[in-house]
């Protein structure tokens, strides 16, 4: 039964790993640089595994989610800065994901975009209001598994596997080094986006994890995110094999779906669109919850889906307000793919604010007792923190110098 539970969690994590940021950056990176940036995905996936395991462990042992720990560990001022940065990035991401859902629905139905934005918002609100946490995870996680069609597409496109293997070794084989660095930063940001850890740690509390569940935490983080990274590889290989040779810059969600359509026909197209719909829809709910979790945890309000909507009124009101704000942003007509790029790059800037408190708390013996970080977790955590710091300092300059990845 426990193995079954772990398997379900892992399946959900694979399907739920990819969001609009991963879709955009992985396929665009493949189209621009072939398989050269596959190694960055590995770096990003290991990073999210390391920090998710830590914050899941903190949640299971202390029964405190990330923002509880942030407020307690870094104080009100720094905590408030972290909260504001997290909420701004979260809202941008939420709006981009909602826009992505509407675009997918439009590609499937041909109906008008603005009506589909409204439909997406209403549907997401109803799902969050009515459906239990477990089922939300399962529905979107399993639906997102349709994205595995990109793995089949990648094979059917017959990439040069020697070049693919070479992509896992860090190297720069281009004259446009700045653009290469911009994509590297974006890929790292997409893999380690902060809402993932907020959602993961709060979810651990929702599911009532305790020290006995540390094995499930490790398995979910390691295998779930690890195999989720496999989808990122598939997307980048598809982008490289299909678009690079044809000199196409895939800038639309429809372009990404064509990555499965060209090698697999109508079936590939339908599976890709359904997979993208569920992946982006699931990420919308993750970001929506993350925003509400963050504020409620920071303010010390009642929070969580394990309570009824009326049982945590300010938490419920927060996610309703976030949904309305996202609606307002997407209704302006802003391009969700462009918004995604900004959201990912700004999330990179906020990464140190998210990950430093997790590292400090997970390493705090007074807080964690015998479950505090061991040597390996500390070495990995510290190494990644240095990487995150360097990447966050270079994100905005790179965005300006490359005109948001245009040159």
């Amino acid at each position: 039964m426990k193995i079954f539970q772990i398997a379900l969690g892992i399946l959900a994590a694979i399907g739920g790993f990819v969001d609009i940021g991963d879709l955009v950056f992985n396929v665009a990176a493949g189209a621009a640089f072939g398989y050269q940036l596959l190694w960055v995905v590995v770096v990003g996936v290991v990073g999210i595994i390391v920090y998710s395991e830590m914050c899941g462990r903190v949640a299971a042992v202390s029964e405190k989610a990330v923002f509880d720990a942030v407020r307690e560990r870094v104080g009100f001022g720094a905590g408030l800065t972290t909260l504001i940065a997290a909420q701004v990035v979260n809202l941008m991401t939420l709006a981009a994901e909602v826009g992505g859902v509407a675009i997918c629905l439009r590609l499937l139905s041909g109906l008008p975009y603005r009506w589909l934005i409204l439909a997406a918002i209403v549907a997401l609100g109803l799902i969050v209001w009515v459906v239990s946490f477990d089922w939300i995870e399962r529905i979107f996680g399993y639906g997102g598994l349709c994205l595995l069609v990109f793995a089949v597409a990648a094979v059917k496109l017959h990439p040069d596997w020697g070049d693919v293997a070479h992509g896992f070794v860090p190297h720069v084989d281009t004259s446009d080094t700045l653009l290469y660095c911009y994509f590297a930063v974006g890929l790292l940001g997409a893999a380690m986006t902060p809402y993932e850890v907020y959602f993961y740690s709060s979810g651990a509390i929702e599911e009532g994890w305790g020290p006995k569940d540390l094995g499930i935490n490790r398995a979910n983080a390691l295998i779930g995110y690890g195999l989720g990274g496999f989808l990122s590889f598939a997307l980048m290989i598809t982008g490289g094999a299909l678009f690079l040779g044809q000199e196409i810059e895939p800038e639309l969600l429809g372009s990404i779906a064509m990555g499965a359509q060209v090698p697999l026909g109508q079936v590939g197209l339908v599976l890709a669109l359904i997979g993208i719909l569920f992946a982006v829809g699931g990420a919308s709910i993750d970001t929506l919850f993350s925003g509400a979790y963050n504020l409620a945890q920071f303010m010390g309000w009642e929070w969580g889906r394990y309570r009824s909507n009326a049982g945590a009124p300010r938490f419920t009101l927060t996610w309703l307000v976030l949904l309305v704000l996202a609606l307002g942003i997407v209704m302006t007509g802003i391009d969700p793919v462009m918004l995604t790029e900004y959201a990912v790059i700004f999330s990179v800037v906020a990464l140190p604010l998210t990950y430093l408190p997790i590292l400090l708390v997970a390493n705090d013996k007074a807080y964690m007792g015998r479950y505090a970080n061991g040597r390996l977790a500390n070495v990995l955590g510290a190494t990644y923190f240095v990487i995150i710091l360097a990447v966050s300092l270079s994100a905005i300059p790179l965005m300006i110098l490359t005109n948001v990845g245009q040159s």
Partner: protein
Amino acid sequence: MRLAAYLLLATILLAGCNGGTVDLHALSNDSASIDSLACEGALLANEVADGDSLGPFTRVHAGELGTRASNFEDALSERPTTPGIERATRREAEKAGRIAALLDQLATADSEDAARLKSRLEREGDCP
């Protein structure tokens, strides 16, 4: 906090700024993007010709590609240029217009028309 907000705004404006005078670098970038739209359209046309697409998908995606091409046509036909590249810029605008028209046709094309549009898009975009 106010300083941070100004910096954020300035960053977005600087990064998103795509207006003003067209120089050689911008023209070269825009030209590559226009060719990319044509080549992606040709790829989609090939799927339509083979009966491997869905009606709504073709309509919406070809329409989106067409809108982007049309935006390039508007921008490149109006924006001032640096000396010596005005004719090339206006020629590129005309090409973007032709590609936009082909993509609009693709949105409602049957498989026979799609095969014809594919070769025309490939020619316009100088696709590999």
